[in-house]
């Protein structure tokens, strides 16, 4: 096939090929899956992936199968049995999700990359840079938003909250609903110093320098040391690419217990939603590989369908 033959394909198809080439060059090998996965896999890990509204059916052996709403669990399932210590895998799969808005099931084509290491946690930077390189290929202004779940997950007061209150608090943070957050913190009798910290940090958004300054002025350096330290490493390196903006925003939190460190989202001008979502999920990796207590994983998915508006 000549290179010019690619022009016969739609922009979407060309992009998908371009992304796969990029991932292969970065050392990632493709994992392929069927559209179906055992429902039990998702049920066992329901704290990590929402199991509501999954499309299920009983196969000819009486097992409940589902049309996969997420690929990461399947990647982890496969990876746990592989002999290598370090796995860089990518996938190109459809996922099937229920839309609260249309009350219908939608198919999303995703290209994802996962970096799993069995004897230590993989670095944040490699994966974040890979996400940035994928965004660069879009030829429109992009923004990569970084956050760190540590400021919540390592907060003793937050950890003692009942699970439904934790979810409520995360939803208020992720919608930047400051008045709602203030009401909830008061209702849950959050101590005054914790209230001040959560209200300040959850509302922080801007360059890493701006965020560091605000944390310093608020006197939260000690509690935020790990999150800010890790974010600095990534944000400063990604910030060297002046064509694409990098923002730290602590309102970016994941409502499920999936991510435990760096989380990020990529946005492209003209697309109404995030086109890339990802982060570190060491805790999930350790559930799949309990014999590797120091293992870790980080990855992201790009929703190809979200990019259609750019090519219309």
């Amino acid at each position, binding site marked *: 096939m000549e290179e010019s033959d690619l022009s016969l394909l739609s922009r979407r198809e060309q992009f998908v090929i371009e992304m796969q080439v990029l991932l292969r060059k970065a050392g990632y090998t493709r994992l392929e899956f069927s559209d179906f996965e055992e429902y039990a896999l998702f049920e066992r890990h329901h704290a990590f992936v929402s199991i509501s509204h999954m499309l299920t059916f009983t196969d000819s052996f009486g097992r409940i199968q589902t049309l996969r709403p997420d690929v990461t669990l399947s990647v982890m399932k496969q990876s746990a049995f592989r002999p290598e210590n370090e796995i860089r895998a990518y996938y190109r799969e459809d996922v099937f999700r229920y839309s609260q808005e249309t009350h219908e099931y939608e198919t999303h084509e995703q290209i994802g990359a996962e970096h799993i290491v069995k004897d230590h946690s993989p670095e944040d930077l490699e994966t974040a840079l890979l996400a940035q390189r994928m965004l660069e290929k879009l030829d429109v202004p992009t923004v990569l938003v970084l956050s760190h779940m540590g400021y919540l997950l390592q907060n003793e007061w937050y950890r003692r909250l009942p699970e439904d209150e934790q979810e409520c608090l995360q939803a208020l943070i992720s919608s930047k*609903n400051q008045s709602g957050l203030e009401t909830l913190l008061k209702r849950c009798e959050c101590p005054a110093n914790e209230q001040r910290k959560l209200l300040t940090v959850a509302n922080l958004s801007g360059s890493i320098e701006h965020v560091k300054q605000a944390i310093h002025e608020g006197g939260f350096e000690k509690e935020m040391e790990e999150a800010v330290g890790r974010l600095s490493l990534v944000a400063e390196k990604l910030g060297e690419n002046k064509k694409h903006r990098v923002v730290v925003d602590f309102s970016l939190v994941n409502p499920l217990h999936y991510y435990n460190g760096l989380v990020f989202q990529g946005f492209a001008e003209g697309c*109404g*939603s995030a086109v890339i979502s990802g982060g570190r999920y060491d805790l999930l990796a350790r559930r799949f590989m309990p014999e590797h207590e120091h293992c870790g994983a980080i990855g992201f998915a790009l929703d190809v369908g979200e990019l259609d508006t750019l090519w219309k």
Partner: protein
Amino acid sequence: MLTIALPKGRLGNQVYDILKGAGYGIPAMEDIGRRLILLDEERGLKYLLVKPLDVAVYVEKGAADVGVAGKDVLEEFEPDVFEMLDLGFGKCSMCVAAPEGYKEEGGRKVRVATKFEHIARKYYSRIGRDAEFIHLNGSIELAPVMGLADVIVDIVETGTTLKENHLHVVDRFMDISARVIVNKASYRFHEEAVDTMIGRLKEARSK
């Protein structure tokens, strides 16, 4: 250019007033007529006039960058948007209301008529009561009167309509007011303009 989805109708009039107070008013807002788009070229703003229920859809999908929607709409449709400001007007409550003299029969599902099915489902799930939902698009108060439902879940502002239909509030479980919502992706590309607008609206709200 920043695109702002505004609700038509009664809530819309209050929104135009606060926009004017915040320095975003344009003469065309005084007499909108049947127009659906208003342009403020000087400030680089485009206003879309849409049904209150549709504001959240426009903003979530990115057809508008900013919008003003009632908390009831946000709770019903749970759009993935930033909810950045409570404007403090359009205040009312989401309530369970029942006919005068109504007594709960624990032995069967309670029949609930509502336009806000998702909110009603969440409410009954939270209190652990089995319920059956009847979705209606208006005149909800009629349902218990005609024996279609035991109770209703609906917005109550003054309570006059309830009273006129011999209903009373059993539980007032959600405060509602107008909120400024922002598309999560748009915010990344118009952060300064959005933050300025939110700041000015906050000032106008406290005047």
